[in-house]
């Protein structure tokens, strides 16, 4: 019994991958893909842009993991709360857009610092499972508190960006997605530089490696925790603006955060370039399966396919395409 199970455990991923591909082929996906290549190209381009917008949200996640070794299951809720604050300023107080964004910015800074002080700092040195559970608790707290304080009515954030798509040959590009993708790449490049080249970035990586050793080396661990959470909050504000413009602002916005996990697992949890690649792959898979497989299985592939891909990745390379492989000591 046990050798069989061990064998299954080693080859499980490949069996699953084969089954997944067979499933898609059997549903007629691949044949249609070749026959209907124009549609496929359109979907692919849209998918890549959407994927890069997922990256924009995943940045905050990777940032926190890279600099504090904590896992933030509430990233989607960060995005939601940022968007709700901005939308609330616009709707209720009638503030101009730039002022609302500024208020949102200030709110996220205070929010990140409060969070670090009262939730994360007491948990320094605790088991990783405890931190995961705490952020799950935080996610549900925000999902309840956001609408309660800022109103549950759905609204939108109207950015001064044209709605009509840019047509360029075969391609239809949505301006907001283009902008989101550009901001996302810009930010990721910036963070990549920050972590590699600056003193603070190196200190943050040291903190992630070991809280205790960093403290012994004279790094102010608490300050870097605060910096990481505040930055994650501010990045969430950007994600909230882009996604809030696209799909509207209510609690459903938090569900975008669920796409973060496939993105970061595919790319590697502590890799900046991995976030871009992971985002693109997830966006592509999502768009193509939604376009070609959905009609055969009755919908929902958009949410299903990235997770299957992620499970397969977890079994082949849990640390992702670009992630660092951890070696465990007692």
């Amino acid at each position, binding site marked *: 019994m046990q050798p069989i199970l061990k064998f299954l455990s080693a080859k*499980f991923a490949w069996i699953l991958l084969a089954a997944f591909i067979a499933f898609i082929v059997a549903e007629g996906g691949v044949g249609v893909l070749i026959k209907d290549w124009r549609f496929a190209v359109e979907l692919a381009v849209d998918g890549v842009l959407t994927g890069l917008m997922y990256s924009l949200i995943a940045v905050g996640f990777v940032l926190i993991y890279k600099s504090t070794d904590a896992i933030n299951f509430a990233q989607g809720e960060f995005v939601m709360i940022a968007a709700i604050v901005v939308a609330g300023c616009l709707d209720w107080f009638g503030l101009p857009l730039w002022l609302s964004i500024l208020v949102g910015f200030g709110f996220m800074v205070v929010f990140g610092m409060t969070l670090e002080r009262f939730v994360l700092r007491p948990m320094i040195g605790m088991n990783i499972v405890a931190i995961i559970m705490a952020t799950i*608790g935080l996610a*549900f*707290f925000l999902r*309840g508190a956001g609408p*309660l304080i800022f109103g549950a009515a759905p609204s939108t954030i109207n950015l001064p960006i044209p709605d009509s798509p840019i047509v360029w040959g075969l391609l239809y590009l949505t301006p907001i997605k283009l902008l989101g993708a550009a901001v996302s790449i810009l930010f990721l490049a910036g963070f990549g530089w920050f972590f590699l080249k600056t003193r603070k970035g190196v200190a943050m990586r040291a903190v992630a490696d070991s809280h205790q050793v960093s403290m012994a080396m004279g790094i102010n661990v608490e300050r870097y925790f605060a910096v990481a959470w505040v930055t994650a909050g501010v990045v969430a504000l950007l994600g909230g603006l882009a996604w809030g413009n696209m799909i509207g602002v209510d609690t459903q916005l938090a569900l975008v955060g669920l796409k973060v996990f496939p993105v970061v697992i595919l790319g590697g949890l502590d890799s900046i370039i991995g976030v871009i690649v992971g985002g693109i792959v997830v966006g592509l898979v999502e768009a193509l399966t939604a376009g070609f497989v959905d009609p055969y299985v009755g919908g929902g592939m958009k949410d299903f396919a990235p997770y299957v891909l992620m499970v397969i990745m977890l079994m082949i390379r849990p640390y992702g395409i670009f992630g660092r492989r951890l070696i465990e000591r007692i």
Partner: protein
Amino acid sequence: MFHRECGYYKTSYQGDQAILPFPIAKQAIFGLLLLFLIVIPFFANEYYLSQLSLVAIAVVGALGLNILLGYTGQISIGHAAFMSVGAYTAANLVTRIEIGGEQLPFFLALPAGGIMAALIGLVVGIPSLRVKGLYLAIATLAAQFIIEWIINHTPAISGGAAAAIEVDRPALFGWVMNEQWELYLFVMFFAILAIMAATNLVRSRVGRALVAIRDQDIAAEIIGINVFKYKLYAFAISSFFAGVTGVLYMYYFSIATYEQFQIVVSIDFLAMCIIGGLGSIVGTIFGAFFIIMLPVVIRIVMESFGPYFMDPSYLPQVIGQLRLIFFGGLIMVFLIVEPEGLNRLWQNIRNYFRVWPFSY
């Protein structure tokens, strides 16, 4: 009467290893059984009886999760998905197999649902040898979505577009349990069974191996524990409990629908384990009671005081939001302030009264 240990000396190994070592514990358990099995079904009204039934069902599922989370240290965010596996398995068996014009009896459907959930749990558990901590959390999250999607999109399992299967009330040799008190006793029986099974499990060789894996898995492997085997055991046992919980929910509501088993439910069960106390059977019971009763309390408080400071039409919405806030907030507060949960508070109270009124 509080001097529990006074004058009792253990003279045999059996006495030393007994679950209830002192007469006062036996009396207390007897009293509690009397209260919950005889007094409450007769005197409580329908509403509270139904809430207590939900507590009893939740105890079963929370025990399963606590075996995995509290005793083995493996996180699972897909507990509700295993419940749905159990519920749909049982629902399909019950509605498709007829014995003498009757639906399949519950004492066959219940273990069948549990075993099916345990098998699916094994499949999800197989990667647990390779991944742990964060990765396991994400893998079980994926399992939640994947299982939910598969059930929803396979008409053979979900029974059509609404993804809901209706079943009859459980019947025991012709006695159909229609009344609330009958259902209450039905689920209470299985809750007690689950409590006994879990209590004995964690005292056994398997339970000790699980605890060793939780504390340090590499060290456990070095002292000769087959980590792979016991992690799979933990997943299978936990999923079995979850599957049984799913079947109980199905019988209790007379319907199996995926809406009862969404990710929010998984989080509810996580909250039960954390608030009750990780790695504690008594704590799990407290946790289940707390989490099921909290919305009731919030609702009563809001309905009596809410209209004074807000428009009554907002009340249902606000109650739902408050429920999320309290759940999330309490998870955080307990993790930070009292990681051992309600169980620790109970221990403190007990230890205080152990030597009361003489503190020496």
